[in-house]
Structures are given as structure tokens and as C-alpha cells.
């Protein structure tokens, strides 16, 4: 008979022992909620600097891939900025071969603007890339800072002009090869 007493006693813990008590449930719920908030806050804080890196985490870091991009940027910059009055068409053709279809139109239009003067004054322009450095790069897109020296001379007037330029070159990979998608001079 005494064995039924505890089952009907309202003061007795549910399910028996401290583990089944309502006050423990309340306490544990509060602790778990508090911990969850604290863990969430710390995870957010810890993740914050990683997110900064994630925005550029697709950057290429392999040395060979970086070198390939740097060489392409320097080479293509030289090609689009080098032309001679006696090989104008060929220079144009060579440079256009490694430009995106959108940029080749822009480049062609720019070269048309200098065509007449180049022929008239027998102008030659030589561009030499003195350094190139990656601003940002993924496997398929890159932006490269190129320092380039241009020397423009006229065989007719014997005039010479030297310009030290700073270019930002946009490249995209087309069929596995870096191709120039745009170029802009700084300043």
C-alpha cells in the first residue's frame, strides 16, 4: 500500500528524482537558451574577419597561374599600345587577336582616330611594360596594374615624346587563354 503513496503525492517529482523535476527543466531551458545566444554571438564575431577574406577567397594563389596572368597583362598592354606607321594594319590585327569582341570594337575605334595622323606624320609608338601586379584575380577574370612606358616618335618631324603610364588592365579567360577585356589609364 505504501508503494502507491509517492505516485499520488503532488510534491513528488514527475518521473521520479531530481532529473524529472519541473524546476530543473526551467533552469536547464534558461541555461540552454543563454548558451545558444552566447555561442551564436561568438560564432558571428569569429566569422566576421573570415567573411572579409571570403569576398576575395576565389583569388588565384598558385604562383604559375599568377605569373601567367602577369605576363599576359604586360604582353597585351604592349601590343595594344605599340604601332608603327609602316605596319599599322598588321599591328592592329595582331593586337585584336587577343581582345574580347566587345573590347576589339572599342580598340578599333580608338585606332581609327589615330590612323590618319599616324600615316601623315609617319608615327611609331613603342610601349614597354616595366612592371605588372595583380589587383584581383580569379580563375577566369583578372585585373592587373601595369606600369608602361610609351615612346612616340615621328619620322617626318623627328619629334619624340615619352609618357610613363599607369594602366588598369581587365582580362578574362577565353578558351583557356587570357584575353584583354578593357584597359584604362589612371590619372
Amino acid at each position, binding site marked *: 500500500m505504501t508503494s502507491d503513496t509517492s505516485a499520488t503525492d503532488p510534491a513528488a517529482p514527475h518521473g521520479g*528524482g531530481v532529473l524529472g523535476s519541473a524546476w530543473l*527543466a526551467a533552469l536547464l531551458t534558461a541555461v540552454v537558451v543563454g548558451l*545558444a545566444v552566447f555561442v551564436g554571438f561568438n560564432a558571428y564575431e569569429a566569422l566576421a574577419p573570415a567573411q572579409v*577574406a571570403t569576398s576575395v577567397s576565389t*583569388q588565384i594563389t598558385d604562383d604559375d597561374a599568377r605569373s601567367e596572368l602577369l605576363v599576359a597583362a604586360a604582353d597585351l598592354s604592349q601590343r595594344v599600345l605599340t604601332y608603327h606607321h609602316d605596319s599599322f594594319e598588321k599591328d592592329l590585327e595582331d593586337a585584336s587577336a587577343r581582345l574580347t569582341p566587345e573590347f576589339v570594337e572599342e580598340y578599333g575605334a580608338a585606332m581609327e582616330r589615330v590612323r590618319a595622323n599616324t600615316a601623315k606624320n609617319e608615327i611609331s609608338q613603342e610601349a614597354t611594360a616595366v612592371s605588372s601586379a595583380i589587383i584581383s584575380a580569379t580563375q577566369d577574370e583578372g585585373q592587373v*596594374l601595369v606600369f608602361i612606358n610609351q615612346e612616340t616618335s615621328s619620322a617626318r618631324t623627328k619629334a619624340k615624346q615619352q609618357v610613363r603610364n599607369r594602366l588598369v588592365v581587365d582580362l578574362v579567360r577565353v578558351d583557356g587563354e587570357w584575353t584583354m577585356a578593357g584597359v584604362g589609364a589612371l590619372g
Partner: protein
Amino acid sequence: MDLRRFNILLLILGLALGAALALLLVRGNEALPGETEAEQSAKQHLDVTRAAAAQVQAFLGVDHENVEEQAQVVLDGATGDFKQQYAEELDSLIRSAQAQQSTAEATVLEVGISDIDASVATVFVAADTVVTSKATDGTSRTVPWRIQLDMVKEDDRWLTSGLQFVG
């Protein structure tokens, strides 16, 4: 679910959260998924870029009324030969800036990284300064710059060990 089972579940959840919290407090973001080698490398690129931009900004900027303080910023971000050379020329730089009442407002236009590994980097920076001095009769003149920085990592900071103008 009876109360006993519910409490056991809460206990397990509490222990798991406690362990996660301890891990986070001890190891920071390394304890979280996503900090890959590529992300560490990307963060390194970002650190180098920021340090180079800050150094060029400090190096090119001139305020004849505040030259010593500006020079200290350059020295704080410098090391090795560059630090020594800059320190040696500091008096002359200060006298010149004060005599000419020079100001140069520097703007970093682009920063690119040429070579980089865990402890050294070669960085190129394009910047402009807008300069006014007695020599310009108070009118401002924009000067373009092409700069190469050699950087080394010391005590988790990227410092400039060499600076040269690219001709």
C-alpha cells in the same frame, strides 16, 4: 515526452553548446568551417594591400605643420634598410617641408601584388599627390607616382623594407 527525458535532452544540448563555446573562445574563427587555405591566402593579400596603401599614403603625404607626426607613421610601418634610410633623411625632409611650406595630399589609386609568399611580398602602387608649396606659388599641382614596395611580415604585421620609384 516526459519531463525526465526532456531534461536529459536539455542537459545534452547544454553540454554541446558549452563545448562549442569553449572551442570558439579558445580557437576563434579557426573553429568554424570556411577558414580554408585559400581564404587565409586571400586575407594575406588583403593585409598586404592595406599595409602598402597605408604606407604610400603616409610616405607621400606632407603637411609642413605636422611633418614629424607624419614621419612617425612612416617609421612605424617600416623596417630594415628603408627604415634606416628614411630616418637618416628625416631632418632634411622636415627642414625642406617647413622651408617650402609644402603640403601634399596623397591619394592611392591602385595597389597590385607582384610576388607574395608567407613572409615577403613585392607590391606596386599607383598614387597621385596634389602638391602646393612656395615653389608652386600656392597653386596646386597634381603629381603622378609609380612606386614599388618590398614588404616583409614581422610580428604579424606587413612592414616596408624597401621603397623605390618606378622609372
